[in-house]
């Protein structure tokens, strides 16, 4: 315990101020104050050219219930759910096989999963425009088979492809760490007791890797609708499908309705916090049960 005692590099109070003062000062001014500002906007009336008029009102929150916006939210949730499900279906087997690879190949396979994630987000989205365009390689292939051309770009399918492409690593990484941690002896025991591989998977591997599944799903699901992704729906959906991110962007930059934009942002953060708490709670429960 003594080794872990905090070492006072500098005097107590002055050390605290010298190390954390500048950072937290900066965060207070450029993060907390702006967030408080946005929070306060939720209860005021909109200004004519952006900004707010300081008259309290509840109508910004009431507008959330407008069917027009509920439809946007429902649409976003639907696309996010489809993306999450596809990410799980592709990601689980991938993570499972990576965990079984020899150590050297494991690193290569993992880096290969993360590599596209580190490239410019717009470029990754743009790549799908090139791929799915009516004269692009996918459609040329379909044409050669006598199946096309089919409209692939500017559809919900294109948005899902773009979202999946952007966030698949967020599913694979937690799944990998969950599967990797599993004790191989458990599977051997199951096999020795006569269980077929499928049975072992459903009753041993899958239940034990559920926390990873949950984390991956929360990451993908949370990031997809809320990360402010107005770019993918706009570029790959051709603006036909409006998602929550587009709505918030438009309230701030086009409609100039900052109070309603703030309410939407608050709602997004609230959902995010709720899901992250639910995930932490479930992970703790799973940890205790094991």
């Amino acid at each position, binding site marked *: 315990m003594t080794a872990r005692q*905090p070492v006072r590099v500098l005097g107590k109070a002055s050390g605290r101020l010298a190390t954390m003062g500048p950072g937290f000062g900066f965060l207070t001014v450029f993060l907390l104050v702006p967030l408080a500002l946005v929070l306060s906007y939720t209860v005021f009336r909109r200004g004519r050219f952006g900004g707010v008029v300081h008259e309290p009102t509840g109508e910004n929150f009431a507008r959330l219930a407008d069917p027009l916006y509920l439809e946007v939210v429902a649409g976003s949730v639907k696309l996010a759910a489809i993306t999450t499900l596809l990410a799980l279906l592709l990601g689980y087997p991938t993570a499972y096989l990576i965990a079984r690879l020899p150590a050297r190949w494991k690193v290569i396979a993992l880096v290969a999963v993360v590599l596209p994630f580190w490239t*410019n987000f717009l470029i990754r989205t743009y790549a799908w*425009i090139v791929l799915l365009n009516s*004269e692009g390689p996918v459609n040329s292939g379909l044409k050669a088979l006598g199946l096309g051309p089919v409209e692939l770009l500017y559809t919900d399918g294109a948005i899902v492809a773009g979202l999946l492409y952007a966030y698949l690593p967020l599913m694979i990484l937690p799944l990998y760490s969950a599967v990797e941690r599993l004790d191989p002896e458990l599977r051997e025991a199951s096999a020795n007791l006569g269980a077929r591989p499928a049975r072992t998977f459903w009753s041993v591997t899958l239940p034990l890797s559920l926390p990873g599944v949950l984390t991956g799903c929360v990451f993908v699901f949370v990031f997809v609708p809320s990360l402010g992704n107005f770019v993918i729906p706009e570029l790959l959906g051709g603006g036909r499908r409006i998602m929550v991110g587009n709505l918030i962007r438009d309230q701030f930059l086009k409609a100039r309705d900052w109070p309603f934009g703030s309410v939407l942002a608050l709602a997004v953060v609230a959902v995010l916090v709720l899901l992250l708490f639910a995930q932490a709670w479930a992970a703790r429960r799973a940890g205790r049960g094991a």
Partner: protein
Amino acid sequence: MRRHGWLRLPFWLTYLFLYAPIVVLVMMSFNRNRSPYTWGGLSLDWYGRLAGNASIRTGLVNTLIVALGSTALSTVLGTLLAVGLARHTRSRLLDALSTLPAILPDLVIAIGLLAFYSAIKLTLGLHSVLIAHTVFGMAFVAAVVRARLGGMDTSLEEASRDLGAAPLTTFVRITLPTLAPGIVAGALLAFTLSLDEFVIAFFTAAPSEPTLPIVIYSMVRFGVTPEINALATLLLAVSFTVVIVAQRLTRLTEALK
């Protein structure tokens, strides 16, 4: 592997899905054909055309200014913050505050800063983007440096103190050099994130001074040109190199430990 035969399909599908768009993009960038979608032979024309594009050059310079500036600021603030959090407090609230910028959706940070800048009547420009990028850059530097601090042996610091070194001397001569690999890794992370960041820059930049991602966004929105393919290929090459070098570096430092 043999036992998991049916799992191989989604496994290879994942990698096909991840790399097919990149391969197509790179191939297209070397395509002689004016139409970006049909193959007309190998050519470097679009790279030449790209070099002559003024708006891309401006964007690139702006992005580098913002990334270098915000990385410098993030590295100083984030490193100090990490040391403070590890050594001077046990507050979970401060801990949470330091990671908040990394967790919050970028759109929320973007609208917050837009509202704030407008409330204090700050003229937008490269400085406003630089500040915005420091908000999240600092959080990532602090997180990486803290991870390094967690595994650090404190006995050297104690010895330095026992031998009568002033606190600042101990910090500069013992703590900082020990933390150096973490600081470099954190700075690299902050730099890469700033280079690629679009949403926050889109809200906090002046229209007359766009960063490179903003330039790319407007180009992509108004149509596909082979020039973008060339630019994309160059950017892909840069990020791939950075990631692989960073990967090698961390393995090197781990081997030296």
